[in-house]
């Protein structure tokens, strides 16, 4: 399995570049990395302009990097998750559906290695896009909010990376279980919804990966970090991976 992994990851990476998956993800990350600090910083101006046109006065407190961070987290976690699901929903189901999976399976390659390679390449794609977004956000924040804590911000992005990676694994696993990309997307979106609803539960809510915002703010402010969402993410990743491998191992090509 190990011998074929570099070739498989190379193939997945090439696919990510040539089918514009990487480009789309980088563009989305860049968008939120630039837009979040700018929107936060210019919000008083925007509101006063809107208010003036309506003959009302809108007053808000002093804008800090917290506001920029809130914008970044809220927008990036929501739109970013949808983009991750869309770019990864067809990575196994699409190949099963169009027949190209037969090519791989006729080689001495284990099905687990195929899934590992797909997750590996997605991990790289997510990391590159997120780094681009993170550096843009950091650059603008440092310029607009001089007290912006750079190192804690970089550390906090690790949690966002785990969050995105968890949804990539969930989508790849669904993609391995079904024959059509759209079904993989529906499964992932449903899981996202369930994990978001779970946050409302007193007993297990603190383990939901949807609490990533709290973790990132804790990391940013230097507070003790609640690791329960990370543990929850790990459990979700393990469970979905096991199911994905089990179902994919039994998959047989049909006409």
């Amino acid at each position, binding site marked *: 399995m190990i011998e074929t992994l570099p070739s498989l990851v190379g193939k997945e990476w090439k696919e990510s570049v040539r089918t514009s998956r990487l480009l789309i993800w980088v563009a989305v990350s860049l968008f939120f990395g630039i837009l979040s600090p700018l929107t936060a910083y210019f919000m008083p101006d925007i509101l006063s302009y809107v208010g003036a046109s309506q003959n009302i006065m809108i007053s808000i407190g002093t804008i800090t990097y917290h506001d920029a961070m809130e914008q970044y987290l809220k927008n990036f976690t929501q739109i970013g998750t949808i983009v991750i699901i869309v770019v990864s929903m067809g990575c196994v189901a699409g190949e099963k559906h169009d027949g190209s999976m037969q090519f791989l399976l*006729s080689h001495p390659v284990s099905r687990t290695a195929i899934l590992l390679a797909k997750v590996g390449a997605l991990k790289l794609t997510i990391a590159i896009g997120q780094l681009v977004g993170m550096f843009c956000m950091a650059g603008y924040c440092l310029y607009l909010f001089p007290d912006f804590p750079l190192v804690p911000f970089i550390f906090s992005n690790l949690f966002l990376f785990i969050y995105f990676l968890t949804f990539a694994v969930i989508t790849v696993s669904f993609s391995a279980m079904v024959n059509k990309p759209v079904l993989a997307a529906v499964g992932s979106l449903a899981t996202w919804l369930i994990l978001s609803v779970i946050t409302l539960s007193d007993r297990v809510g603190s383990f939901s990966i949807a609490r990533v915002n709290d973790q990132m703010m804790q990391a940013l402010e230097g507070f003790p970090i609640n690791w329960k969402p990370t543990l929850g993410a790990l459990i979700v990743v393990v469970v979905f991976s096991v199911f994905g491998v089990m179902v994919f191992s039994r998959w047989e090509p049909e006409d």
Partner: protein
Amino acid sequence: MAIIEVNTITKRFKTVSALSGVSLAVQKGVVFGFLGPNGAGKTTLIRILAGLITPDEGSFRIAGKGNTMETKQHVGYLAQSPRFYRWLTARELLKLSGNLHGMEARHLDDRIDSLLELCGIANVADRRIGGFSGGMRQRLGIAQAIIHEPDVVFLDEPVSALDPQGRKEVLDLIDSLRESTTVFMSSHILDDVQRVCDEVAIIKDGAIRIHEKTKRLLQLHARPVLIMTFDSHTEAQAASDLCGELGIETTARGETISMLSADYDTNQRKILDFVGSHGLKLKSLMHQEATLEDVFMHHMREEYHD
């Protein structure tokens, strides 16, 4: 010693039985033709032997090895309608295939160049596969199936998407493989099978009905055919209807009808009398050597009547 040994393989898809107790042995170095009507189980058996699907019952051995990952190292496979990654070039796909088979980089580059040339796709080697025609994909499929010089190569309908010139070239290529590789190919084009295959098996309803050397099969089962050509399609149809009344089975194609020479010999007088009395213009009367197609069609008819 048989390089492919299939022992009572059974495969069901939900309620449909695709293979029921198929056993087969193919000797090393032969080109083996696997024939059968649509849905007979050809593709299912090939997919099982290529390691893509698992049989419900039974077993197989290829080059002395059972159904393991290692077996795939000895096997090449071309799917019926090959689909590859549209965003890769032909050269990149062959490189990926070679790498997955663990080939050494230096040897692989030389092998890719020679195969691109051999399969007639050297001029499109660096073009993305997404723009390939069906024929080009099929040639690329053959190249990737033999890149690692396997002991056995399974080709599912390898010439179905090719034009006559392409068919000839690919059949010549298959013919030349027999020195190093055992070829197991399925095809609907019986002329092609007759041309290159040393052995033939016919499968129907998931069971092997005939397995013989091609020459012997023709000697045993093929019967010469007589072809009558008339002036028009209507006249040919009238003659065909009369033959039907006489209990003779015919195949009508346009202005010609064909029947077994033996049937014609027995009913010669009646047929010619009918032709004469109805003023049908018989343009030619020709005996034709038996072909694999005749054997196949005859066998399928017998199965149908049974």
